[in-house]
């Protein structure tokens, strides 16, 4: 037993070589990012160890309250990440649109996935719900973050075009239509690409994990297909809700552009 843990430890230590390599490269290139990389690596390690122990506890003591709490924390954290991850300052209304679209998009997909697709019993079984929620939340977060940036940059970059349309009597909806479509596109692209490349270009993390821990590849593939569809559903739902709510926040009640 001791031997396995030792081996694992040494493997992990060896993996940190990548971080050291990265630091050396940045040093040579004179990019002042050593601190961030170091902090990032340390945070990642500590967070994962913490999560590991937390999950061991929650898996051992399955209770709906724990499951719901963890999902709520993931959701809150992902919303915060999206809001803090933009270069420009967001309006309060835009922050609300982000929170609302992610919450409803993710929860609707998660509930559908758990009750209809997997038909889990009990429904709060943390061993399933937590990792699945993690993947759905993570991917939706990436998608919405891309959508937010694309929408903001579109509104600022194409301000003249939006206003030219308004001057001709366009509604905000028509004036922003092109930007909204572009934002939806760029937000969905990574998810669509990962669907297309799935299994050929890369093996997704969940499947890799399952196979590594001894599950038959066929079972792993079944789950992967289901979860991929769940992710696509959640990302598109969150993103479409976001762009539809989000573009409106750039216009005031008198249909004037406000940046």
């Amino acid at each position, binding site marked *: 037993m001791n031997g396995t843990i030792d081996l694992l430890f040494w493997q992990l230590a060896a993996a940190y070589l990548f971080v050291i390599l990265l630091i050396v490269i940045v040093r040579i290139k004179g990019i002042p990012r050593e601190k961030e990389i170091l902090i990032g690596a340390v945070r990642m390690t500590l967070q994962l160890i913490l999560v590991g122990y937390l999950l061991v506890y929650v898996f051992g003591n399955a209770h709906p309250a724990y499951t719901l709490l963890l999902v709520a924390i993931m959701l809150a954290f992902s919303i915060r990440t999206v809001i803090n991850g933009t270069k420009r300052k967001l309006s309060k209304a835009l922050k609300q649109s982000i929170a609302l679209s992610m919450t409803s998009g993710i929860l609707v997909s998660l509930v559908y996935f758990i009750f209809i697709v997997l038909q889990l019993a009990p429904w709060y079984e943390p061993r399933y719900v937590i990792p699945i929620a993690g993947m759905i939340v993570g991917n939706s977060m990436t998608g919405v973050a891309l959508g937010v940036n694309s929408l903001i940059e579109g509104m600022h970059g194409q301000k003249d*075009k939006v206003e*030219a*349309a308004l*001057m*001709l009597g366009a509604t905000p909806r028509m004036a922003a239509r092109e930007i909204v479509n572009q934002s939806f596109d760029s937000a969905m692209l990574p998810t669509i690409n990962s669907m297309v490349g799935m299994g050929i270009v890369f093996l997704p993390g969940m499947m890799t994990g399952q196979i590594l821990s001894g599950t038959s590849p066929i079972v792993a593939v079944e789950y992967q297909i289901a979860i991929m569809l769940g992710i696509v559903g959640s990302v598109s739902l969150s993103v479409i809700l976001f762009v539809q709510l989000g573009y409106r926040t750039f216009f005031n009640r008198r249909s*004037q552009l406000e940046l």
Partner: protein
Amino acid sequence: MFRLKGVKAKGILSITDLTIPAKRITCIVGESGSGKTTLLRLLNQLDSPDEGEIWLNQRLSSELDPIPWRREAVMVPQATITFKGTIRDNLQIGLSFAGKPEASDERLKEALHLACLEKDLEQNAEELSGGEKQRLALARAIVMNPMVLLLDEPTSALDEDTADTVMQRLTAFMRENGKTLVMITHSRHIADTYADFVIEMKDGTGRRGRTGGVYSEWNH
């Protein structure tokens, strides 16, 4: 057509009392940064004043839905915008924004003629020169056949002769059809030749007078 009273906007515009008459041609002149564009945007309801009141066709602007108003008082911005697609697409887009039925090719060609742009409707609008795009933007507004045209330096990218022809055709069309034209220009010649009234902007205030260099005090 327009009346502004005690209007302040963007910390630059400050107009005590200004009337812009209907069915007339009014030019707004003044040095760069004096607030001409700011004023025109108020008339299009693209901005609202911070203070004061604006009457648009006898109705108080704050009680008016801006979108239908903009369809009747169409503005063409200072920086020319072309939309994706052909010249035809660019001419139709205003009508489609306004939820109006498409115009016939004949009407599109009429508008192009008024704007002195004799081009094939099928041509890609991106291929046009800067001055051609400016005339396309003008024609797009004409196709909408609004009650009022608000033009921000509509001939700034044109040579003098073309600018003159455009102005001749446009002003004749507006007069024949009893429409209101409000346009910003840097050209003293255009203001003197075509305007019934001239508003001179200075440090955000507007003084209105008849053409011919005689400006009557209108506010202060």
